[in-house]
Every structure is written in structure tokens, then in C-alpha cells.
């Protein structure tokens, strides 16, 4: 049955090929990289800010939920159309990718794949550091909405640290600009920072101005192999407290090493308890000295071996393999619950212990990898959706992981966002008032609650994760 707003939508987006109505199309926009399948009423694929604005005006008038979506690689349920309505696919908004050398900035459309930006920037001799493992699949718009991070977060920060300005369509269909093209900007409230990480609940980002930095002169990667997980944790603290700032420092436990090696051998040692993958960048002379120090320190703490890769090819091989960890572990069991609880760096060894206890207590396949340098761990639970009994244990384990992180002074999410998956735990971290302040901001921006409803904020009485349908 065609509703009134359906007809109006046809007028807003004149090219009807970009309004999808068939069941197959609708179901294809009903999932992401996490959990759950939904069916929107319409999928629209706008190509301009004006079209986005018109869609939102219409939706706002008729109180239709709108779910922005990039490439659907979200791991927390962000783009899921949980209440039907419209999925607004931003992937066709790719018209702009301008690099402004004089101001060291780039202006890009939201649908552009992050790695394309990185390539273009690299060609000009500059550097855009944020590097989520999904960079060759996810959109920059999605990265903004999730404030995505990656291995380089340690030294260079996350996506949000590189956003100078945004063009945003508000839930009421108005076009606004936040921030600008200057490195410094303190005029009024920092709305740019508010939009970054807002997971599509405050509006649709239609253009982004990014800050670029000069490319570091040289780069070296190290692989340190440990027979004891605790030692690897101590090595992380040791390196960071010695004053060296690696551009990335990743930890991969034995389960993840084996998953990668089974899938696409990169030469990681399969009998190690954990490996640290460290990247140093900067002046070649300084790096030389830092390699020496790290090598010595790791060996003193108990590393079995420390290797360095200088050639770009060798380095790429190490890091490409790291990018495969997340999908490769899914071979262990078909359903993957990916968490990104983050703790202060000094608490990493303790967090490892807590995770180990949880693994044993609930008898589940729990593996850990992550951005050790910044305390952003990715405990992943591999299970099977069809095994109802196990899923119940997994639900309890997930709750306990979050509790552990918060107990240790950490946070629910270091980079994957809250979405639907972590909404139930928000009050635990923020407290009642803290969460209420956020809600009030949402209500002001989006009085009819049409932008990505049921994300970030828990439903009444919702305080635990439910994975079974």
C-alpha cells in the first residue's frame, strides 16, 4: 500500500532509480556488521545536500524515522532501521575530494571510502592518520559519525582530531555549517565535536573539511613476540613510560594469531602467547635509537624475539595481517560479538586478567586483540546464534566485560560507538544525570525524534544486552 509520504518522496528524489522499494532492496539495507536484521519502508540514495534536506523535511513533517547509512560496517548497530522508515544511503554522495595544499586541508563528500582519501592525500605528499581497519570499505561519513579510530590513535588521535568543519543537514531539513577551515576556531559551542561521534542521531553530514599533516620522513615496524600475555602488557607500559611515542602499538593474542595464520599466513609465530606490533615514525636518526631501546626493553621484560621491518613491503605485510584479525577470528565460530571496551593504559594487564576470568567463568570463546597503546581492547566473543544456551552465557559475559571496563575507570566504547548494542549500559557509565543531559541535547536538535531513533539511548527499563530474537 502506498502511503501519502511515499508519493511525496517520489517527488523529492526525481530520479526514481534512487528510491528503492522492492523487498530484496529493503532487506539489503536492514543489516550492518553487527547483529540484527530489519526492514525499512524505503531506501533513498541522495546525491546532494539539497536532496538530503528535502528528504529530512518530509520525514520530519510526517514523523518518519530516518536512518543514515554509509557502507554498513558498523559494529554496534548504528545504521540499523529498527523502526522501519527510511534508510538514507549516503554512498552515492562522492562528488567532492579536494586537497587544498596551501591550507593542508581536504574537503570531501561523506560517501567517499576512507582509503580513497588516504591514497589521494598520500599522492600529494601528505598524511591523514586515522586508520580504522575497515578503511578500505567504510565511508568517511560513517567514520565521522562513529568517531572511528585505529592503531595510530595512540600518537595521532582519532577521526575527530582531524575534522575542522562540517556541513550538516539538521533533522528539520536545514543546512548548517560547523567549524570551518581554520586550525584554530573557538567561536561559540563546538558543534563539530558534538556531531562527530553522534552516530547519525543529530543530523546527516553532507560535507567534511579534514585537517592533513605532513608525511613523516620514515617509518619502521617492529614485531615483539611474548610467551606470556602479562609480559606483553608490561612491555606496553614500559615503552610508553620511557618517553617513546610509537605511532601504533597493537596487541594480538594467541587465538587471533592462529586465526590469521590459518586464513592467510603472514608469518606471525603461532606458538606465542601474544605479539606486539609496534610502528615508529619520524626522523630516521631518532627512530634508529628508539628501535634499539624498545628491542632492549622488550627482551628484558621477557620477549622471546624482536624483529624489525624497514622495507615498505615487509611492513605492509605485518599490518595487512593485523587488518585481517577481526574478520579472520570469525572462522572460530560463526557469530561474532565484537566489543571495544577501553581502559586507562596502566590498567591493561588487569583488564587482561579480568577477561581471562570471564572466559573461564562462562566457558566461552573469548579472544582479545586491540590498540594496546591507547588501552582500546577488542575482546571478541565467538559463538553461534543458533546455540540458545551459549548465547545466554554470552549475554552475561558481555555485561561483565563492560562492568570490568567501567570499574577500571574505562569506557564502553573506544571507537565502535554505542548504537543498539551498548545502549543498555549507558547509564552505568554516565550516571542518570549525565545521560539525561545528552538526551536533552538530542531533544532540542531533533524534536520529532526522527534521526536514527533507538540508538545510543536505552529504551525504558533496558539494562542488559539481548541477543536472542
Amino acid at each position, binding site marked *: 500500500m502506498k502511503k501519502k509520504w511515499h508519493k511525496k518522496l517520489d517527488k523529492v528524489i526525481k530520479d526514481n532509480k534512487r528510491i528503492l522499494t*522492492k523487498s*530484496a532492496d529493503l*532487506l*539489503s539495507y536492514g543489516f*550492518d*556488521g553487527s547483529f540484527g*536484521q530489519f526492514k525499512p519502508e524505503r531506501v533513498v540514495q541522495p546525491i546532494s545536500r539539497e536532496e538530503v534536506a528535502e528528504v529530512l523535511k518530509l520525514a520530519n513533517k510526517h514523523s518518519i524515522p530516518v536512518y543514515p547509512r554509509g557502507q554498513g560496517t558498523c559494529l554496534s548497530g548504528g545504521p540499523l532501521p529498527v523502526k522501519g522508515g527510511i534508510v538514507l*544511503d549516503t554512498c*552515492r554522495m562522492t562528488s567532492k575530494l579536494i586537497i587544498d595544499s596551501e591550507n593542508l586541508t581536504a574537503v570531501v563528500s561523506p560517501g567517499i571510502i576512507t582509503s580513497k582519501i588516504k591514497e589521494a592525500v598520500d599522492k600529494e605528499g601528505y598524511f591523514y592518520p586515522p586508520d580504522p581497519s575497515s578503511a578500505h570499505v567504510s565511508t568517511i561519513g560513517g567514520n565521522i559519525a562513529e568517531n572511528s579510530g585505529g592503531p595510530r590513535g595512540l600518537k595521532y588521535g582519532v577521526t575527530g582530531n582531524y575534522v575542522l568543519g562540517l556541513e550538516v543537514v539538521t533533522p528539520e531539513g536545514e543546512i548548517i555549517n560547523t567549524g570551518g577551515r581554520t586550525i584554530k576556531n573557538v567561536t561559540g559551542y563546538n558543534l563539530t565535536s558534538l556531531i562527530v561521534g553522534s552516530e547519525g542521531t543529530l543530523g546527516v553530514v553532507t560535507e567534511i573539511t579534514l585537517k592533513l599533516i605532513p608525511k613523516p620522513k620514515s617509518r619502521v615496524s617492529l614485531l615483539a613476540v611474548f610467551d606470556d600475555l602479562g609480559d606483553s602488557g608490561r612491555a606496553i607500559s614500559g615503552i610508553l613510560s620511557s618517553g617513546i611515542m610509537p605511532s601504533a602499538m597493537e596487541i594480538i593474542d594467541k587465538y587471533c594469531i592462529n586465526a590469521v595464520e590459518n586464513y592467510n599466513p603472514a608469518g606471525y609465530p603461532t606458538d606465542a602467547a601474544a605479539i606486539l606490533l609496534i610502528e615508529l615514525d619520524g626522523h630516521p636518526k631518532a627512530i634508529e635509537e628508539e628501535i634499539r631501546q624498545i628491542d632492549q626493553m622488550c627482551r628484558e621484560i621477557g620477549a622471546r624475539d624482536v624483529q624489525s621491518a624497514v622495507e615498505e613491503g615487509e611492513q605492509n605485510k605485518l599490518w595487512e595481517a593485523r587488518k585481517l584479525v577481526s574478520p579472520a577470528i570469525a*572462522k572460530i565460530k560463526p557469530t561474532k560479538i565484537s566489543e571495544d571496551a577501553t581502559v586507562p593504559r596502566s590498567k591493561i594487564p588487569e583488564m587482561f586478567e579480568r577477561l581471562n576470568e570471564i572466559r573461564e567463568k562462562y566457558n566461552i570463546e573469548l579472544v582479545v586483540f586491540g590498540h594496546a597503546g591507547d588501552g582500546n581492547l577488542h575482546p571478541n566473543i565467538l559463538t553461534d546464534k543458533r546455540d540458545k544456551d551459549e548465547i545466554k552465557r554470552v549475554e552475561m559475559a558481555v555485561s561483565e566485560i563492560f562492568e570490568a571496563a567501567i570499574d577500571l575507570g574505562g569506557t564502553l566504547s573506544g571507537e565502535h560507538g554505542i548504537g543498539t548494542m551498548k545502549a543498555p549500559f549507558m547509564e552505568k557509565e554516565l550516571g542518570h544525570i549525565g545521560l539525561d543531559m545528552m538526551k536533552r541535547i538530542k531533544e532540542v536538535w531533533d524534536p520529532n525524534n526522527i534521526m536514527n531513533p533507538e540508538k545510543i539511548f536505552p529504551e525504558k527499563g533496558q539494562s542488559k544486552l539481548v541477543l536472542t530474537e
Partner: protein
Amino acid sequence: MNEQSLKDLQQKIGYEYTFDCVQCGYCLPACPTYETMGKETHSPRGRINLVKMAAEDKMDIEELRDPIEKCLGCQACVTACPTNTQYGRILEGAKKVLNDTEKKSVAKKTTEKIVFSKLFPSSSSMDMVGHIMWGYEKTGLQKLARKTKLTNLAPLHLGKFEQVLPSSVSPKERKSRKNYYPAIGKAKFTVAMFTGCIMDSSFFTTNQNMIKLLNYAGANVYIPEEQTCCGALHAHSGEVNQAKELAKLNIEAFEKYNIEYVVNNAGGCGAQLSEYDHLLSEEPEWKAKTHTFVQKSKDISTVLWHLGGLPLLEEKEELVTYQPSCHLTHVQKVTREPKALIETIPGVIFREMKDEQKCCGSAGIYNIVNYDEAMDILDVKMSHMRPTKANTIVTTNPGCLLQMKMGIKREGLEGSVRAMHLVDFLAERLVVNS
């Protein structure tokens, strides 16, 4: 749907395989139809999800038809997938289910029957395109098509393909081919050639060149007469039973010879031969023979490389790029040898084109039944080919070869760029001692 029929459906459609997909999207950049059609519905991840939805009765089977029919079957997604999801099996299952449930018109049924059971298995004919062209005139299909309005069923732009077909070889020339060609000089080993119905009709000269290359590289070559079509097109269209029959005929035809390799020169056929063990997996009595056959089946580039390459090649400067066949790359996993062979040719400057491993849009009979979609994909391919400034595009599959010729024509590059099968390209440079 009741529980039993849902279970049957799940069994047939490859529901179990869909659980390997973690919906990470790593396959999206590899998929040509996602690139050109711009919809998740036409991405690997989307298609897998839809098969799952259909298998869970959350969507009508019929809704699956368009996404599945618009898939090239190039398997680039399989190569890209970090969890090794067997998309090929899911696609195959979906095709089978769709084929079984399709309410075909009498005209379509008759046509398919003629195409699949008369044209393809007949060793005296065929290429899937050249093949259809040939059959189109010779088997009375033309008349039938007119009468049944077959041409209305799908936009068969056959005329366009006819223009790029190589000129045909007279039946007399075909007949004069012998059953055995000994190696020139000392034989390193003995092989048998899989001629392929496609290759042997429209690309007869390529087959003859392949014999020559093998002989010069040091192999004795048998050409078993009893062999037939590989069955790839049947299998890919959901006609699994016919594919099985053809497989058995081929296995029997080759097992009579004492040979190291069964050599083919068409990526698509080679892929099918290499999957006979899967095709016949439910027939235990065929297991051993099939295994031997599959082990021996190799692409010409692998065999030539194993023979140590070609002895003497003429030196001449030429800019060359390579369009690999998807089935060679993503199913047979042969990627190194064809390029290595090209690079051994003196004077050749090799330039890889961007996204070389992406399908050119030919994909069996995809470019005939989905002409517009195939041309969009071809246009992307040509936009990557142009910057290489190559004079020659080398391919490893007849379908790709025709498609590249079509691309050259569409771009108005005739005269400055040519497309050639790797075998013909090597043969052109081969210094033949008299």
C-alpha cells in the same frame, strides 16, 4: 512454508554456508556489480544476506531472482573474503532453486533444451558466444527464435558480438587435425589437450597454436576425440544434472591416456574441470577417478611455466597489459604464470591495469543476457585499460577476449589496440625452426 519444505529449501540453497559471512563488507570493493549498480542488493554481502532471508522464509524466492541473475559469478568476492565464505556454493544453490521454481514458457524451455543438450555438448561446434552464433544459424534456432519470439525474452545483442568473432575455420581444416602431436626435440612429458567446445569452434586457430607451443616447450600432446563440453554453462545456469553427465564423459575420455596433465586454455572451462570433484561429490564410485582428473587439469600458462617457458621468442618492443580471466584468478587461483610468461618475451613492456582482477563483464553468457549491465562493467574496465597506453591486451579466456574486442570497438580504439589470447600472443613471437 511448512517445516519440511523449508528444511529442503535450506538444504538446496546452501543456507549453512551463509553463516560464514560476518557481514564485514571486505568483499564490497572487489565486486564489479556493486561498483556499477550501486546497490547493496547487488553486492556479495547483500546477495548472501538475501539467500539467508529467502531460506528463512522472510522473503519470497522470486525476489532473489534479479540479484542472483545479475551476479557475474566471477568469484572476486571469494578471493577478497577473510572468512573464506563459499559464495560460489551459495550462488550455485540459489541458481538451482531458482531454476527449479521458474515457471518457464514453452519457448524458453525449448530454446534452453536445444542450447544445452544439442549445441554445447557437440564437439563439432561452439563457443558460448561464437557457439550460440553458430548454432543460431545452423540448428534452426534462428527460425525457432523468430517463431517463438525468443528475441523478446532477453535483449540478446547477438549481432554486436558477431562482429568481434574471429573468422571461422573450414570443416576441412578441422578434420585434418591429428590425434597426437609429438614434442619437438626431447620430450619432457606428455599431456592431453582439453579442446573445449567454445575454443574449438570459433577459436580453432588458438587451439592449434596451443599444440604448437606445447610441442616447442617439450610436451607430447594427445587430443582425445571422445571429449565433450566442460559443462560450465550448464552448471552455472542451474542445469546440474546435465553438467554431471558431461563431466563423466570427459573423465572417461581422458583416463585412457597416460599423461601428466589435462591442459586447457579457457579460464572458464578450466575452472569447471577443477570443480568436477565438487560436482560429483555425491557419487562415491566416481571419487578416485575424479580426483585424478582434477589434479591433472591445468591451465596452459601453468603447464608452459612448468615446462620452463618457451625456447626462442622474437624480440620486438610492445606495450602490453593483461586482463585475467576471473575463473583463472579466483577459482583456479592462477595469477602469476600468465604474467610471468608475458614478461619473458623480449621487448615486451608490461603494464598492469588498475583493478586488473575485476571481471570485464563477459562472464559466460552474462554479456548476452544482461547486455546493458555487462557494458557498464566493460566501460569501467576500459577506463582502467586506457591509461596503460597498451597496444595489446592479453587475455586467457575466449569470453574475455571477445569482451575486450567489444571494448576496443566501443572506445573506437580499433587499429591502435588489439586483444589477443595469451596462446596466440606467445605463438606470434615463437621462432619456429624449419
